[in-house]
């Protein structure tokens, strides 16, 4: 029985796809996460208050989401509510993460698939396009840097933020840096839109090449953002996770602390990452899930893209390569929304309240770039007795494998294996933008 193994690149972390074929029939397609560091185990015994500094190291790409989810899990356990300005600064911090992540995924991870090149940093075929590529890479990094700078401004450290603390954030943003940041975003927005327009066009060309937007069928969707003005920092106490049916009906809504009653979690022997399902069905998290539940985003440019998307593809839309377009829409939204917030005064009120640590149980929920992220801690004698990290990527693992089986059956016949399969495997996995460091932690 031949086995095809595809190493993966342009995703976060170490993973591969293994497809088993028997008599020309695809038997299975596995998405295998190949690393683990053991956070769940080694945080046991750690003083609870130190978690917000330790857990960003789960992942340097999603560190901001872990930082905030961790602080919110402790606030839930200690029964502390941060002041409004504390929340606002955290929202900016998470917007910075959305900008950085979506710019990375759209321009650095998946744009090369549209251009037919192994990387945005490698020369394209033909000399005339070399300059074009250099310009693309420079502009892509410029947009991406806006996200990083926003994370630095509101999170302190630029990769593993430190400014969110139990009870709020350590400081606000003074008017001058706020205004500089706003100007930087203002300059980057048209660049981002131009790049995204080109991405949108080249995505259509890709669709023609592979037949459809990635085949595959409808699925359930899961997200923690609402239907308008998505706030990636769900407010503690009001946090809910929603599930949308394949027909587009909201069919479930639950608090982070009830996730075990609603979702089924299982492990496999071929991956260090587990996977979840809803009522025995395949789910999808990440950008397409959010956009499928969004009526309006609430900022002008992003809403233009959103209506264009919904007119072209309907709501809910199901084709997997649409995840990539949704990331571009969210990039534009996050840039616009960050500018709105930076116009407000951000250092005129208290940013944190005092607190008294106590034992108990806490749940923190944020909508990370890849979907709802839950941190769940049990605290005894001030130490972590048990910790669970419910990572968005695991909600997508079944969906990734289903989409891979569809792609494999398209390119593998009893007569031959079409080597377009290798590129298709890459495109399918990248559409879900999985994060392996997070998924295995």
């Amino acid at each position, binding site marked *: 029985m031949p086995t095809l193994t595809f190493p993966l690149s342009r995703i976060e972390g170490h993973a591969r796809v293994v497809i088993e074929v028997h008599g020309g029939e695809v038997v299975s397609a596995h998405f295998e996460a190949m690393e683990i560091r053991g956070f769940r185990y080694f945080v046991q015994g750690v003083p609870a208050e130190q978690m917000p500094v330790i857990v960003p190291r789960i992942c340097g790409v999603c560190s901001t989401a872990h930082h905030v989810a961790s602080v919110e899990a402790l606030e839930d356990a200690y029964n502390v509510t941060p002041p409004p300005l504390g929340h606002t600064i955290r929202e900016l911090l998470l917007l910075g993460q959305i900008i950085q992540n979506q710019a990375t995924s759209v321009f650095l991870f998946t744009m*090369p698939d549209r251009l037919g090149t192994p*990387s945005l940093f490698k020369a394209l075929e033909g000399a005339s396009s070399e300059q074009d590529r250099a310009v693309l890479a420079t502009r892509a*990094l410029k947009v991406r840097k806006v996200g990083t700078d926003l994370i630095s401004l509101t999170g302190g450290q630029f990769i593993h933020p430190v400014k969110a603390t139990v009870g709020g954030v350590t400081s606000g943003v003074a008017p001058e840096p706020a205004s500089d940041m706003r100007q930087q975003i203002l300059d980057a927005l048209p660049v981002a839109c131009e790049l995204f327009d080109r991405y949108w066009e080249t995505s259509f060309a890709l669709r023609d090449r592979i037949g459809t937007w990635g085949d595959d069928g409808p699925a359930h969707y899961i997200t923690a953002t609402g239907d308008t003005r998505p706030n990636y920092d769900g407010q503690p106490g009001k946090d809910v996770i929603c599930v949308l049916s394949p027909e587009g009906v909201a069919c479930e809504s639950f608090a982070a602390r009830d996730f075990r009653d609603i979702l089924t979690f299982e492990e496999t022997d071929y991956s260090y990452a587990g996977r979840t399902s809803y009522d025995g069905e395949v789910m999808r998290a990440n950008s397409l899930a959010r956009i499928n539940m969004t009526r309006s985003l609430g900022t002008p440019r992003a809403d233009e893209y959103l209506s264009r998307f919904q007119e072209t593809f309907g709501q809910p839309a199901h084709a997997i390569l649409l995840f990539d377009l949704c990331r571009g829409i969210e990039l534009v939204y996050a840039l616009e929304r960050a500018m709105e917030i930076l116009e407000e005064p951000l250092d005129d009120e*208290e940013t944190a309240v005092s607190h008294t640590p106590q034992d108990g149980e806490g749940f923190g929920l944020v909508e990370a770039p890849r979907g709802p992220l839950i941190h769940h801690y049990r605290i005894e004698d001030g130490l972590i007795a048990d910790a669970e990290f419910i990572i968005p990527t695991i909600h997508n693992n079944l969906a990734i494998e289903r989409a891979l089986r569809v792609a494999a059956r398209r390119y593998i016949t009893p007569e031959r294996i079409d080597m377009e399969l290798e590129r298709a495997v890459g495109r399918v996995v990248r559409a879900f933008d999985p994060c392996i460091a997070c998924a295995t932690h």
Partner: protein
Amino acid sequence: MDGRTPEQFAVLQLSGCAGCEVALLNAGDWLDERELVYMPLVISAYDVPPVDTLLVSGGIRTDEDLHNLRRAVQQAGRVVAVGTCAISGGVASLGNRHEVREMFLAQAERRHVPRLLPKCRPIDSAVEVDLYLPGCPPTPELFMAVLREDSDFEASRTVCQECGRKKLRDMKPSHLVGFQSGEVLPDICLINQGYLCVGSSTRGGCRALCTRPGHPCVGCRGPSDVFIEKESEAWLSSIKRVFGGLTDIPEEELDQALRSPQLALFLFQFSDYARRDVEAENRPLRPKEKVL
């Protein structure tokens, strides 16, 4: 560029968080000066080609990490260990504690994926390293100094010297209060405010990017040159001396706090630089000339 072929570099990521790679992408200046030829995070390529510089991030956690590392260094003119994981095992080395290890290795057992090694190890326990770039992660400025082989690059000796917060002799907390008191006061030394900050012993070069906005230094850049070739007693007593001058915190409280896992993340790797025989790994000394 003046028509010469730019120096080529590659990035090999072992088990880690990709934060070092993300930091490198933030240092976009290399785009015009150096050619990046291998970095799976952003380039589809199967193998490391011959390169002038190989940056290695992450620790050796699986048999595949070890294999990839040994193969890659054969292609490289110089090997740079980037970030705390590559240099000291980093956050994952919290999993090296005996009781955690047993539970972890038993529960993580799988059939078809790379095998976990007994412990997470730094890369110089397996290959020769030419330069160490500590930090979790190193800043873009530090990455550029490495790629440019910039001999003029100057970092302050310690984080404390880059921080600029004012030390007061008349504001002496009697306990480590951490963040329980709410807002952090601007401009005043975090130690005066009862935070456990180890910036006085930690290597500078990060421009104090955590302490300036109000978070105590956890020591991710490792020991400053003064302490790099000394045993743990030297920097431990130095930290305690600093606290003695600025606080009335009892020594036992400080001792206990300095041994907490958060600081163990980074602080307890300080002495690894001066020790050849760390848990029987037989890794080389790391003289300060080899550390940026």
